[in-house]
């Protein structure tokens, strides 16, 4: 079981150890040059240059004058696209969920295994930012984190420490939907009481002499993270298996006043109208194809979910397939999206700026423009083509992946030759 991850772990470690540290003490300003630059925000720039200082993009344009002391990296005929962003990943750790159904207080920071192959694979694919979240099997799963795909210690990877609360409104193995909803309602209203109490206590403490280090009563501690959710510190990421769950979840968030992003199961295409009407933030299930059996004439209809949403004009983020992450990477999903009718531009948006917006990080990542982090990948062809490879990946202006030096890849290729 664990052996599978050993090699990538080692690799991730070496990648980071060899590349990351030396680069720390290197000239901070660089300029990257390429034939084509897809700046999702401002169209395509031919023969453009990206000026980077301390990992922040200073300028992206056709011909800016480069200061004499800035080292220019020329990628010649290659093509630059912004680093892809995956808005929900339930991988990169050992155990996805606690056995207890209500654990909102736990955080995935305690779980992220920086040497997990998830990150190495994502990097190879040109994904620079992942949103790591607890799994779908608990009602209140815990807090997630937005991380870059390179780093030794979690803090090195960290972009947003407490990025959201994982909620699952669909029935878990031991719970039916009504139980789930009822428990959520209870938990939320209890939390509201808790918030009220806190306010009360605060007022009282002002009056009396404050004692350093207030002792936290164990049965109340658990409410704090949900309290943060209700105060709007972060969004809820709600897993909805069926269409009715979407309505239910939306209704719940309306009732208790928190913002949410919806992680849709394939059947949710039925609720497309509702989603369009309410303008919900949604992420599609990695499986774009849904087979439906007619209750009457047991015929099986095949539905292209992505196409349905696209036709309704709904913006959505694309996710990679958790089970087959090796084969169904994010770029592959992009190809699938294009095959179900999206244009290259839209597909690119669906893996860069749209998820960035959902994560509330569109001021940092998601496109190549002034002031954002210099996270991008250099391709040898247009994105979302089977023939295209990721040659280099830059994160915050530092070269963190190089295809030529990818040992694992080399091995695989050698094997191919032998066969």
């Amino acid at each position, binding site marked *: 079981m664990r052996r599978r991850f050993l090699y990538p772990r080692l690799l991730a470690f070496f990648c980071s150890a060899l590349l990351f540290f030396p680069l720390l003490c290197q000239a901070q300003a660089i300029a990257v040059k390429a034939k084509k630059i897809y700046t999702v925000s401002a169209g395509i720039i031919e023969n453009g240059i990206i000026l980077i200082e301390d990992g922040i993009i200073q300028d992206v344009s056709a011909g800016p004058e480069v200061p004499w002391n800035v080292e220019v990296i020329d990628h010649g005929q290659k093509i630059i696209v912004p680093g892809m962003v995956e808005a929900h990943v339930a991988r990169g750790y050992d155990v996805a969920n606690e056995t207890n159904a209500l654990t909102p207080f736990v955080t995935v920071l305690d779980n992220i295994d920086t040497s997990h192959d998830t990150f190495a694979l994502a990097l190879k694919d040109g994904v620079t930012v992942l949103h790591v979240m607890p799994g779908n099997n608990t009602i209140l799963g815990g807090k997630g984190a937005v991380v870059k795909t390179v780093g030794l210690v979690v803090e090195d990877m960290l972009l947003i420490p407490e990025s959201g609360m994982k909620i699952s409104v669909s029935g878990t193995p031991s719970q039916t939907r009504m139980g789930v909803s009822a428990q959520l309602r209870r938990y939320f209203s209890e939390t509201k009481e808790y918030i009220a109490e806190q306010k009360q206590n605060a007022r009282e403490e002002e009056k009396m002499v404050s004692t350093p280090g207030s002792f936290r009563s164990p049965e109340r501690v658990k409410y704090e993270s949900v309290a943060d959710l209700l105060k709007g510190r972060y969004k809820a990421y709600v897993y909805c298996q069926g269409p009715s769950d979407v309505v239910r979840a939306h209704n719940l968030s309306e009732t208790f006043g928190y913002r949410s992003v919806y992680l849709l199961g394939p059947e949710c295409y039925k609720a497309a109208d509702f989603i369009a009407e309410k303008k919900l933030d949604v992420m599609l299930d990695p499986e774009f194809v849904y087979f439906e059996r*007619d209750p*009457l*004439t*047991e015929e099986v209809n095949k539905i292209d979910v992505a196409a349905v949403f696209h036709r309704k004009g709904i913006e959505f983020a694309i996710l990679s397939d958790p089970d087959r992450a090796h084969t169904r990477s994010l770029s592959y999903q992009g190809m699938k999206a294009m095959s179900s009718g999206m244009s290259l531009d839209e597909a690119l948006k669906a893996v860069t700026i749209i998820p960035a917006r959902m994560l509330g990080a569109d001021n940092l990542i998601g496109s190549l423009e002034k002031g954002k982090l210099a996270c991008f990948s250099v391709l040898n062809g247009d994105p979302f083509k089977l023939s295209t490879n990721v040659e280099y990946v830059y994160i915050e202006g530092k070269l963190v992946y190089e295809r030529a030096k990818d040992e694992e890849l080399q091995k695989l290729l050698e094997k191919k030759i032998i066969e």
Partner: protein
Amino acid sequence: MKNNKCLRQAACLFICAFLIPAFPALFGQEDGSIYIKAKKIYTSDGGRIVTAGGILVEGGKITRVDAKARPPKNVKELDFTKNIIIPGMMDAYSHMGFRDEDYDVRTEPPPPYRAPLTGIYLLFYGQQERQPSSLRVEPRFKASDAVYSRDPRFKDFLLEGITTAAIAIPTTNLSGGVAFIGKLGSGSPEDFVMSDTAGAVFAFAGDRNVMNRYGDLHKMFRDAQDYRKSWEKYKKDLKKYQDQQIDKTSLPEGKNGEKGSETKDIQEPEEPKKDENHEAILQALDIKVPVLIRASRENEVQAALKIQDEFKVRLVLVGGQEAYKVPQDLLSRKVSVIAGPDVILNKKGKRINYIRELLADGIQVAFCSSSSSGAPLLSYRLAYAVQHGLSRIQALDTVTAHAARIFGLSDRIGSIAAGRDADFVVLDGEPFGLSTRVKGIYIGGRQLFPEEGIQE
């Protein structure tokens, strides 16, 4: 509960009433001849319908069915000119008189226990799930030995106009023992059992794995055949041996005594063990009784047909929901079907009246409740079939003529014709009408229910 109790009391009283020998005398049973005039008579005798006709009953048998009522002299007349008469109905596969649980061997494993709680779980549930009732029904078992002939529920069935039933042991086993024909309403157990070997019952349905059930059944039959062979051999040897004994005694003693010593004497063959199971199955193999195999899905039906091909038994399918898919195979083998309790199959959105399908293909179809208490629904369910395209006469045949023919009793019951038992039911409306009620029931010419018998 209470409801049921009073029901039972009523029933017991009622059955006891028959046992009073004086009771029949009230109806002039001495010469035992009545003449019944009726508005309409469904003699399910080739679908013949007699309107404004009459039936002559002598000594519990029907002697005459005439199109125009001409009652003979000095015979008690019964006037049902407002009513309709049908033959007594037959439930072709029923468990009435049994309590199912006792004979049902549960094969499914106990539900999964949660590790930490096994103890508590057992405390509450564990016991009954843990040991299923251990009784395995064997081919030699006879339903007639186990049936509770005074089950109060018989009254319900009789009320529905059901006068006869093929009764089998309710079980999910492969072998269901030997079914028997019960005649309801006849008080004493002796004449309750009409024939105690109606057919050997087996079940393919109710088990996912048809293959191993087929295999087991096949083996049973094979063993039975071997058993028969061994007995034949034994008989032959015994014959030889006895002859030799006779020779020995007949030979003259003395002069040429060495002659006797030439013929080496045969040992007495030792007799093979009697095995009732094999005996029971041999009954079926010798086509003395039909083989009833419960088969619903198509593959089960096919398996049953294979058995029939190999052992040339008289096969009757019970259930047979999907038999309509292979009508020719049934026809060519003269296999008949006891359908039910399903009436309509939902397949791919269409509603298939498979009884009609089968009848249309010329296959003999009887209808059954296949439960210990579902019999009262018989006519109701047939009404549902009529709603979906079965004709009334066809529907009636399934519970009268066809049923009787399948069990080879057509000379006694199943239709209103000369020579048959005088079992018939008087209705106040068309049969299988939902508001139709039973006005009277006659068994062997004896009136069981006058009208007020129903209201109670």
